[in-house]
């Protein structure tokens, strides 16, 4: 009963790929620990993403799709894979690269050079929207004004809006972002740790913002970060990997570290966390504050002014603390007791450092 007919032992170092059984295994697949060859790795990696796209009906033929491109590994691999799959499986998508220029010297200018090369390499038209154009301020100028504290408040709020405005300018139907399985697993944990049941109920959705101006989707929802790195490495993809100079991030790093430790013991754990996130029994759709529009700029907002306008007002009046924390602003005269939720969603909580969307 106990004689399992295992694979015959092969000579050390010349193990065959356990998928094709022909080529020599070149890597241990992070998600499954299978030993496989490079070609089979590309194939399972791309095919899994294709399946996720098909099963979740992420795209319709003829749609215009912007890929949020930061120049980092996730969005670079996303741009590469989506343009491949679009060709191979005839999705019929019109693809664009969309980047936000926060105006961070020595960081964003360099990473944008990467995106500009991607534009040529993948043949995808690129649109760059800048903080300077949209808000009149670069991040460098904001930091000069407010110091290093609180600066990610600005970059989070501004970037989210900037991406929507860029998408509107491109007249796209959807934006795809490079959030990967590790990011989503981490967000599930973070939402538990800080008691945010409303976000917990939504953070595993593969499509978000369907009520907003432009829906966003995450084709990498089940794709492991390690595999993205591996893919970029083997394919020699051109990406930018320096961390943002304005945002070292201890807490984030800690939760991420935990996920990496888990992955080391049990790679499956990342998918299990996402599964848990999808399965949580959250009864009444925990309501987010009602969405209206900003009286000033017309962007969606649950308050009189959107978060970006409040922050901007502060900057322009030389009161940069306005809108941060508990200080008083134009929204405070509103009587409805809705607790202000901040523009930056936890799902966008990638380390400010990576500046991925």
């Amino acid at each position, binding site marked *: 009963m106990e004689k399992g007919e295992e694979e015959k032992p092969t000579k050390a170092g010349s193990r065959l790929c356990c998928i094709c059984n022909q080529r020599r295994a070149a890597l241990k697949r992070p998600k499954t620990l299978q030993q496989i060859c490079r070609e089979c790795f590309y194939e399972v990696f791309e095919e899994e993403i294709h399946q996720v796209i098909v099963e979740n009906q992420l795209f319709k033929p003829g749609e215009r799709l912007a890929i949020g491109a930061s120049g980092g590994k996730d969005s670079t691999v996303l741009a590469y894979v989506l343009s491949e799959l679009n060709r191979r499986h005839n999705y019929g998508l019109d693809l664009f690269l969309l980047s936000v220029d926060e105006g961070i010297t020595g960081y964003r200018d360099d990473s944008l050079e990467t995106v500009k090369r991607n534009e040529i390499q993948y043949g995808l038209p690129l649109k760059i929207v800048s903080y300077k154009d949209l808000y009149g301020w670069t991040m460098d100028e904001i930091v000069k004004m407010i110091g290093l*504290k609180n600066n990610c408040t600005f970059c989070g709020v501004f970037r989210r809006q900037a991406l929507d405005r860029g998408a509107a300018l491109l007249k796209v139907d959807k934006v795809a972002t490079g959030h990967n399985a590790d990011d989503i697993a981490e967000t599930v944990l973070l939402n538990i740790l800080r*008691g945010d049941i409303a976000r917990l109920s939504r953070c595993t959705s593969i499509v978000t913002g369907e009520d907003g101006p432009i829906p966003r989707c995450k084709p990498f929802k089940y794709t492991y970060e390690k595999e993205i790195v591996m893919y970029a490495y083997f394919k020699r993809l051109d990406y930018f990997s320096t961390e943002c100079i304005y945002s070292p991030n201890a807490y*984030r790093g800690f939760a991420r570290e935990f996920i990496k430790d888990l992955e080391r013991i049990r790679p499956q754990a990342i998918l299990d966390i996402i599964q*848990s996130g999808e*399965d949580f029994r959250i009864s009444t759709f925990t309501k987010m504050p009602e969405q209206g529009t900003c009286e000033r700029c017309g962007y969606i907002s649950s308050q009189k002014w959107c978060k970006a306008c409040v922050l901007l007002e502060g900057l322009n009046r030389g009161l940069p603390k306005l809108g941060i924390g508990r200080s008083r602003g134009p929204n405070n005269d509103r009587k409805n007791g809705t607790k202000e939720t*901040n523009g*930056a969603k936890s799902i966008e909580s990638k380390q400010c450092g990576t500046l991925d969307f």
Partner: protein
Amino acid sequence: MACNPSNCQSNCYGNEEKAEVVVGEEYVSANQNQNLCIKCKTKEPIGGDEGRMFCIECFRSNLYGKFRLAVTSHAMITPTDNVLVAFSGGPSSRVALQFVHELQHKSLKNFDASRDRSLPVFGVGVAFIDETTISPLPSHDIDRAIQDIRLIVSNLAPPIKQLHVVPIENIYSGDGTNRLKNLLDAVSDTTGKEDLLLHLRMLSLQKVASESGYNKIVLGLCTSRIACHVILATVKGQGYSLPADIQYVDSRWEIPIVLPLRDCLVQELNMLCHLDGLKTVELLKGPCSGINGLVSSFVRILQEENPSRECTIVRTAGKLTPFHFNRILESDDSVIPLATRRRQKRYNLKPNESISSESFCPICNSPLNKSDMLRLSNLGSCQTSSDSFGAACCSSCRFQILPKDPSSMDHFYSLLPQPLVARAKHSSYDNLSLLREQIQDCLLSDSEDDS
């Protein structure tokens, strides 16, 4: 944008954090002037991390108050009950034992004082699961621990409490020592082995409670342990069944389980043991390893970084919808005092809320999620009993406890204690039509049912 709270105060994670810290500071600063207990405002606080706000008396009465509120609001213990306290020797179950004892002691006094003697005094027993046969510890260490436990229990004031020292292999009929060892050896995943042992421990408790006529089992699970469980269940893919495990009452078992210390922190329980000289016996459990060990150190560090973290975790998970069995079941309503029923109403435990017919994993007894049920209902009918046992298990147990190699499944199945096998029979054979009903919306064709 999750940020380092020291870096970013407004839109990120920092928010809620700051608010909580500020509340704490207000307490402290308001307090520093007089340096007095915040409750009675006459005595000095105990000092130390947990006791900085209360004097000894107020600390104790506050902790006991949390216990009593949990007991009364959820009808955990009523006068006609006979409750079994699961005692591991550690501080949590030590306090559970102490508080249950105090409650019993008080109701005895009331009983003696009352004229008509209408309300009987509930009974209390204590169970210790003896894992000598599978423990890496030398057996004389465990023997000594058991002697200490006997002393602890016999030193409690009357009424006398029976102590059941139950060898874990008693889950088998006949001598189960070797089968138990082989069963644990058959699980290759470290975490899976620890978890299986946990389930077997529960099985022993159920067995002794049922055989000795108890109708409730009291566990000493506290906020800190529950916080760990929340993270553990999440990383093991058990998000669906998680709310079943963390409520005050869990009646899915033959003998319902109650958690009266659900709102107490382990630091508070340690403090009470220390202050009141409650003897504990610690060497019993080895350190956990694998995922269980990783998660408990993760939560411990989070708690050190922010003393309200464990509460926040449990509060978040507490917002998940519980199951219909997370209350003392209807049939017992006659003995639930009116006041308690009113309170239950306030706590939003409506009788019909979240009623659904669940199927349960035969190993861990978790309600199965949709994809597990979908898999179960798609099975062919001609199968060996070991295959259908495997199919009835939740995906988490399938992953970390069942053998990976299908050819070992028969062997594994042959080692299982009878009650687990019986659970599978109960859930998988009889329930197919019930299953279909629950997953109807996921089935693509209903042609099989056309008749």
